[in-house]
Each structure stands twice: as structure tokens, then as C-alpha cells.
């Protein structure tokens, strides 16, 4: 699904002492099938953007288009339910939203709500629990008896079972250990490819943005600060630092080595071992010239 924001303003509690403008004249486009990272520090407007993506919020001024749905302050599509069926949001700490008696019931809740037939729900529960890497043996267990990591996976399965076309991930790995983080991110990337999803990852992890996304949008104080391919955005270290963001650590390391030894190694996603060879060759080259 194509998504666009056109000159979007969003003001919380307008005309009250708590009035707060979270988004200012924000415009961007996301093409169907893209994996886009939205980064920005605390309070930059990321959460407000997320809530516009499935119509939980509508712009105070401007326009959002999510597929065929157009939302403005005075226009709400008739079929909001269908919009929400197509845009799945994995909120931060999604396991806090588990509530049913069994894992199966919890995963079924979403599709049942959207009127999916019982037989089909059974099928979807099975597919989605397998997609998140949890054994179907756990279907009859209470979700509250599971470990934190398992609970998160079950909560994610609940979103997948609705079969959204757009997947919005709000810091999906917060609180997970490094192993869990890698597993979950790889899982999302696999689903993104296999199902041809449009994926929007909201994250502080520049490493994840670097590794998975086609495009990065940097938000700052509710406006768009930078936008472009991973290479374009992360080549702007000074501008990112200015808004208290940093480039992925691997890029810093390469840059520091280049500066210290007068090398010109270009980072293009190579592995640490490949980089090690380049550094080793580079240092030997220096010796020859001395």
C-alpha cells in the first residue's frame, strides 16, 4: 500500500493550556513494498505519526493517504475498520496487551473482530504462530505463563493473524536481549519479503535501520529533518549529531580508522571480516610508502 503524508500538522488538545503541536507541515511518501525506518529522538513525533497510519489520529491540517483511504480533519473514511484491518501496528511492549485465557484465543481476537470465518481463523492462528517461531503446543496455554520473549511473539502473532498489508513496528525489540532482538528483526524482515508487506520500523537502533531499510526518515520536533536512502542519511553525520542522533557504530569505527591512518575505506554493508581484510591491506599499503 502506498502511503503519503501531505503537509500534516497535528495538535494535541488544541485551544487548551495543554495545547501541543506534535507534527508540523510533515510530508513524505512510502511506496508499496518498501521497508522504511523512522528515527528520531524522544518526543520527535514518531508515535504521533504511527497513530496517523491507521487513522487513530487524523491530521489537524493537511492530509494523509493510506492506500485508498484519505484522511483529513473533516474527512473520515466510512470504512475505518477496513483501514485498521490492513494496517497492523505492533505497539511498544505489545505483550502488555495480551488479555485472553489462552494463546489461541488471544491470537484469534483480532481476526474475529474483523469478521473472519471461524475455520479461517484456525488456519490463520496456526500460520501466524509458526511465523513467529512458537510451537503450536502452546496454543492452549495461558499467555501469562509464558516467558517475556514468548509473550511478545504471541502478541505479534495476534497482529499477523489479521493479515495486514502494512506492518508498523514501534520499537519492536525494546527490552529484548541481543539474541532475541536479532531473531525478531530477522523474522520481520523475512515476513516483509515473503508477504510483500510495506513495513515501517520506528526505532532508535541505527544498526537495525542500516541493516534492514530501503529508506530512512529522520524526524525532529515534529518535522522531517532528513530523508533518503540509508547511505544518504547516514553520510550526514554532522547533521544527525546536531539533533542528538548518531550514525551506526560500524560507520563511526570505519570513519575513525580512515581519519587516523589516512585510509579511504568505504562502508557498503560488508561484514566485519571483510572490513578486517581491508584494514589489514590498508595498513600494509601505508608501510610500503614510508
Amino acid at each position, binding site marked *: 500500500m502506498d502511503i503519503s503524508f501531505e503537509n500534516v500538522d497535528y495538535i*494535541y488538545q488544541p485551544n487548551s493550556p495543554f495545547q501541543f503541536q506534535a507534527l508540523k507541515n510533515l510530508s513524505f511518501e512510502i511506496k508499496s513494498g518498501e521497508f522504511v525506518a523512522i528515527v528520531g529522538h524522544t518526543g520527535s513525533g514518531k508515535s504521533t505519526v504511527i497513530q496517523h497510519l491507521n487513522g487513530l489520529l487524523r491530521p489537524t491540517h493537511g492530509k494523509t493517504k493510506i492506500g485508498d483511504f484519505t484522511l483529513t480533519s473533516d474527512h473520515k473514511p466510512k470504512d475505518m475498520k477496513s483501514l485498521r484491518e490492513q494496517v497492523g501496528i505492533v505497539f511498544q511492549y505489545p505483550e502488555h496487551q495480551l488479555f485472553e485465557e489462552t494463546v489461541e484465543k488471544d491470537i484469534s481476537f483480532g481476526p474475529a473482530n474483523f469478521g473472519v470465518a471461524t475455520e479461517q481463523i484456525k488456519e490463520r492462528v496456526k500460520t501466524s504462530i509458526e511465523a513467529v517461531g512458537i510451537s503450536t503446543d502452546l496454543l492452549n496455554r495461558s499467555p501469562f505463563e509464558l516467558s517475556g520473549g514468548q509473550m511478545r511473539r504471541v502478541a505479534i502473532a495476534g497482529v499477523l493473524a489479521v493479515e495486514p498489508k502494512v506492518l508498523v513496528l514501534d*520499537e519492536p525489540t525494546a527490552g529484548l536481549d541481543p539474541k532475541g532482538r536479532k531473531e525478531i528483526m530477522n523474522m520481520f524482515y523475512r515476513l516483509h519479503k515473503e508477504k510483500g508487506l510495506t513495513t515501517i520500523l520506528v526505532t532508535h537502533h541505527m544498526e537495525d535501520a542500516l541493516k534492514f531499510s530501503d529508506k530512512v526518515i529522520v524526524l525532529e520536533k515534529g518535522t522531517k529533518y532528513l530523508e533518503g536512502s540509508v547511505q544518504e542519511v547516514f553520510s550526514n553525520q554532522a547533521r544527525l549529531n546536531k539533533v542528538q542522533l548518531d550514525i551506526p557504530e560500524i560507520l563511526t569505527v570505519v570513519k575513525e580508522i580512515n581519519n587516523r591512518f589516512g585510509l579511504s575505506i568505504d562502508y557498503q554493508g560488508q561484514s566485519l571480516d571483510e572490513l*578486517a581484510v581491508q584494514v589489514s591491506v590498508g595498513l600494509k599499503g601505508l608501510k610500503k610508502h614510508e
Partner: protein
Amino acid sequence: MKYMNNYAVEFNNVSFRYHEDEPWILKDVSFKIEANKTTAIIGHNGSGKSTIAKLMNGLLLPEHGQIYIYGTRVEEESIWDIRREVGMVFQNPDNQFVGTTVKDDVAFGLENRGIPRLDMQKRIDETLKAVGMIDYLLHEPYRLSGGQKQRVAIASVMAITPSILILDEATSMLDPLGRKEILETVQHLRKKDNLSLIMISHEVNEMIKADYVIVMEDGKVSIEGTPKTIFSSEDRVKEVGLDIPLVTEFALSLKRHGMELESNPLTHEELLETLWTYHLKT
């Protein structure tokens, strides 16, 4: 509370489980944490780290073994004294708010302890400044974003000046700068107020700055020591499901490709120094 020895925290053969018919969360755990130092307790999800935190201020009591805070045993009778000494900030700030404004929230803990009004205002300002939230004095906590909430939660605990501060994955939701600010703030306070800082985390970059690291695995202490010793055993650390610092991993990779580097660097500066020494020598 009297400070009866130099160990901020001592666990002696501590075992804990939630119910008799459930598996042990901690099994015969012993360690000592020195006062006025930064200690990191790390381990994968479910390794028992957070249970340790809850045992330290008597939110949970052990089934076997003893826990001491500055030499005072943690038990029913000492709990209120202990809790004045042991401040704790949890992972999820939503469960930690009581006030209707940021200011009220920080004031809550101070009021409970009968701090005079003028001092209260000073401490509220100081701690909120320290966590970068002074501009939000009158905001409603529940409207803040996750990271902002956590900074207020840290300010609320800092305001009552505990002698031990436990951050239970408290920075896991902050952005990189927010995290850095918080870490600098707590380090500053640690030195200024003789605070013993205990960081429960899986952020590798938080561990390398600690004086001492305790690695938990399946309810037991797996390895302990300085960050340098811990990360020199690459395989062991990975086995426990944790990352090693990027520069350490890169140095190991350089070694595999024939560069005889002198040490295992933990920071960027150390990596550059190691490379420089190598460069001069060869």
C-alpha cells in the same frame, strides 16, 4: 540505617522461586557488590536478573540464603530502612507514576519522606534538570513519550537520594542521546553522592563502563569480573546470548586476519590505540 560494612549488597547462597511447585528462578546465588562502584548485572531474558533487583529491596524475599544491604539483612523487620537506601527504576515507566504532573510525581516521594517545601522545590528542579525534563514541569506524565516518562521516573528516585540506585533495564527505551544523558547523570551523582550504581541491562555499551560485571545464566552466576576479563572470553559471552562490543569483535576479526594486536579493546579509543601500536611495530 547503619553502614556496617563496605559491601553495598551481599548475596549468600540465595535461592528463590515464586511457588513451591515451580522451578527455581535463582539457585544458590552468591556475590558481593562493592560500595560506590558501578556494577552491571547482565544475562539474557529469563536469566534471573530482575528477580535479583527485587530481592535487593525486599520486594521479594528469598526462600533460602541471606541478602545484606550495607551489612543489614533484608527481612520483614528491616524492609522500610532498606527501601530508603535502595532506589529502583524499572523498565516500564507506566507502572511508576502517581502524580498528575511531572512536578507532582517527583514531589510524591519527597512528601512521603517529609522533606521541607523549599528543599523539595530545589531537589525537583535539580533532578529534572539533570534528566533534561525541566521544561515539562507541568506536563501530565501519561502524555509523555516512553523515554520522557523514564527520565521523570529516574528523577523521582534520584530526588530521594538513595545510597544504592538500581536501574532495571531502565534505559532500554531511551534514544541513544537520552541513554547517554541518563548514564552521565547517574555517574555524576554516583561520584558526587557516593552512590552505588547497579545496572541491570543487556546493553553492551553500558557494561563496558562498569567497574564490575556479573553475568547471570539460568538462575546462576555464570561469570564475574571486570569488563576486560569478561569480554576476553568471546565464546563464553556469546554462549550466554549476549553481544560483545563491536570494537572487541572487530579486533578479534583483525587478529584472525593475521594482525597481532596487543590487547582486546573495549572502546573506540582503545581500538585506535591498539591499531596504532601495531602499525608502529610492524
